[in-house]
């Protein structure tokens, strides 16, 4: 098992290198790990999922609202099936809550029928229109003025952090080399690709570009200019777990002329998320929240779920989507170059990730990658971060076997020292205290470290020594 975070890269030549260890790149590496090949997964950051993947809206989509006939529509539909099964097998928290697209004005109400029809064209047949009385009965805390909703029972919430980590963990355990802090600076293509990275040269026969916000830049290094990634910022507010009782479904907005709009959704961590905004930027690092953005979210949130605004805010963050201006994924194969670009993967990429991975491996095979000898991977079992599932602090048998699971370090999130110890010693260890938070929830609660920050940091530093 190899994870490196510094120093020179191993010599020799990889069969396939995946650039970008987000949810899509990690899924591709995992899929490739089934083959008897030498595979590398590289990322500029110090952890997997550090880019767009970590700030996803965390919904496992049915694909009901995709553009019918698009690649995205197919991959989201397939990916939803694949990831649902994989999550059950590997312990990724998923809560099948169902979604309601709530109509607040006549225009939105009128759009529901078209959305129901679109769902059918996307192969999703369970969506139906619910009348205002039913919507109110199912979501009693909704603000006044509900005119109806599209009921999409198949939508779920999922843990995006565990998903990426499960893929990367399984890939590494199956022989993939994961190189972090490894930024691709240049590429020379020939019989092999030679990548110049911040950690020295890397030689590879095949290359997969899953670099998210930077997929266009990598593409240009390889001589392609098919698309430009415009970072689209989404700011989100996460409310304390006491808000969780206010909402039972994923409350999706009805898309209108002004874009997709703001949703209110429970999270698998037992909280409630409000967002995202949609702002096109030109800075691919600008993941800051703004006063204006937060004000817009609060105003919209107050209309959707008035009581929400009285609850304490646990976290505010912003993520960037890799928007390309195109309505579909930009997955392009260049067989002669033994190169595949996986670009323009937006919010739905989490749901579609396993289907994207299978699609990419097919494209590589079409380009000559030998795919004989595929094997089943050893299953992984990830630690549970979901509030709806048994957590270690409540597990008497586990604590009896190992008292460290009874030693609560992060009080708000009830994270035990045993879980922190395990995360720090895991196949893919965290690169920072924030990475530790995404693996355990430690320091992710209402006090944001007032009580446990120093203790958690001490455990992190100790493990690094």
């Amino acid at each position: 098992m190899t994870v490196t975070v510094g120093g020179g890269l191993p010599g020799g030549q990889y069969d396939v290198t995946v650039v970008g260890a987000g949810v899509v790149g990690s899924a591709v590496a995992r899929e490739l790990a089934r083959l008897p090949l030498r595979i590398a997964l590289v990322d500029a950051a110090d952890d997997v999922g550090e880019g767009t993947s970590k700030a996803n809206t965390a919904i496992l989509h049915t694909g009901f609202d995709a553009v019918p006939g698009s690649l995205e529509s197919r991959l989201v539909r397939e990916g939803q099936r694949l990831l649902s099964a994989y999550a059950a097998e590997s312990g990724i928290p998923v809560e099948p809550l169902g979604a309601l697209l709530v109509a607040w004005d006549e225009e939105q109400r009128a759009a529901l029928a078209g959305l129901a029809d679109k769902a059918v064209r996307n192969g999703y047949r369970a969506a139906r229109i619910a009348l205002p009385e039913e919507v109110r009965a199912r979501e009693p805390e909704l603000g006044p003025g509900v005119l109806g909703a599209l009921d999409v029972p198949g939508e779920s919430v999922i843990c995006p952090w565990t998903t990426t980590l499960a893929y990367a963990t399984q890939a590494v355990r199956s022989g993939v080399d994961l190189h972090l802090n490894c930024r691709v600076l240049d590429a020379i293509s020939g019989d092999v690709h030679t990548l110049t990275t911040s950690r020295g040269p890397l030689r590879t026969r095949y290359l997969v570009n899953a670099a998210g916000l930077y997929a266009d830049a990598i593409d240009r290094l390889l001589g392609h200019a098919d698309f430009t990634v415009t970072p689209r910022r989404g700011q989100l507010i996460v409310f304390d777990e006491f808000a969780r009782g206010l909402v039972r479904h994923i409350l999706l907005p009805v898309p209108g002329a002004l874009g997709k709009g703001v949703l209110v959704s429970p999270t698998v961590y037992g909280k409630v998320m409000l967002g995202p905004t949609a702002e096109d930027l030109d800075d691919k690092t600008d993941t800051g929240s703004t006063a204006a953005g937060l004000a817009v979210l609060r105003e919209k949130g107050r209309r959707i779920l008035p009581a929400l605004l009285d609850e304490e805010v646990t976290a505010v963050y912003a993520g960037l989507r890799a928007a390309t201006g195109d309505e579909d994924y930009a997955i392009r194969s260049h067989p002669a170059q033994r190169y595949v670009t996986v670009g323009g993967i937006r919010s739905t990429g989490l749901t579609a990730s396993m289907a994207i991975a299978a699609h990419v491996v097919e494209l590589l095979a079409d380009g000559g990658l030998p795919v004989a000898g595929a094997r089943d991977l050893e299953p992984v079992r990830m630690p549970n971060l979901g509030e709806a599932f048994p957590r270690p602090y409540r597990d008497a048998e586990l604590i009896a076997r190992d008292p460290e699971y009874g030693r609560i370090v992060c009080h708000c999130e009830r994270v035990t020292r045993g879980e922190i110890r395990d995360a720090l010693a895991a196949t893919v260890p965290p690169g920072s205290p924030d990475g530790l938070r995404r693996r355990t929830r430690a320091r992710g609660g209402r006090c944001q470290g007032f009580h446990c920050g120093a203790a958690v940091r001490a455990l992190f530093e100790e493990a690094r020594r």
Partner: protein
Amino acid sequence: MTRDRTVDVLVVGAGPAGLTLAARLAGAGAGRVEVLEREQDAGGAPRHCHHGGFGGLLRPWLAGPAYARLAVEAAVAAGATVRTGVTATGWAGPLSLETTSPAGLERITARAVVLATGARERPRSARLVPGSRPAGVLTTGELQQSVHLYGQEVGRRAVVVGAEPVARHAVRTLRRAGAEAVAQVTEHSRGIAVPGVPLLTATTVVELRGRGRLSGVAVRHEDGRSGVLACDTVVFTGDWIPDHELARRGGIALDPGTRGPCVDASFRTSAPGVFAVGNALHGVERAAAAAAEGAAASAAVLARLSGAPWPEPGPPLVVRAPLVWVSPNRLTGTAGRPLLLRSGEPLTGPVVTVAQDGRLLWRRRFPGRVPPWRSLRLPPGWTDRVDRGGGPVVVTAG
């Protein structure tokens, strides 16, 4: 397997209030008095407050850790059991708590439960301060623990948000850790300045900047002037909120002003047999004030143990702006000690009035300036004139 146990009094939280109450109760022969502390060490926030003043007028040099140690020793010497590393995670019944510790899961049932869970400072996120999410963003509590309990490095240049006593302690802790406090920022028109640290009043933090590590704090004065303070650390101080999770999980009524459990003057909550004391009631007061509440609650807890009935909740005490809270906030009998009253804004010579159903119960002018971080103490004499069956008792300041 979950172990079931019973005790006479279960106190949740081994800070000044909980420990003082436990010492009183154990000393008065209340039977088995058990204090649960989720941290590895008992003593509460004073454990990481390395400054003097904890001994009151008699021993002003006494620092927090020494005070905490003495409070633990007193409780134990009186016969109370203080258990650390034990977290009350929820309720199993009206007077039964579920706990987790390295020894396993327990269900502890008591004849009286006391919530002494303390308070915390609201972090940057809860204050909706926009910007990036770099390292180096702290509350005073995290800063003090980092420096005093763990000996960790903090940055070199820090901005302190707030200008109340706790902000002064933050500045001192930063200096002890070798960091420079480059400015104090407060949205109020005045604050407590610390010698050597520029104080920016009527100023708001509008953005945090930096990738990986904080690089600066953007501020704006109320007259529109703005700028960026270069720093690698920012400490958000004050803005206390009771740690009311257990109370809320138990369905215990909270006061909208304090955000702590609603209590009467005998520290009785809305749940029969459940009391609440200390900073869990109202956010931060000095350790001595929290301890005094713990001591004052002992008579009511003893009365409960000997079968005294739980009174119907009396009329609520409510405040009008600029006041933000009063504690206690229900009246079921005559109060035996002063009530605490907070304003959200600085007041000068305020006239405080208490009225019920249009009937004036009390009025007094308080001389001098009253900052928003210090409670006014209302003498309790008027509380015997409250009509127990009447409407809300309204406290105003003008």
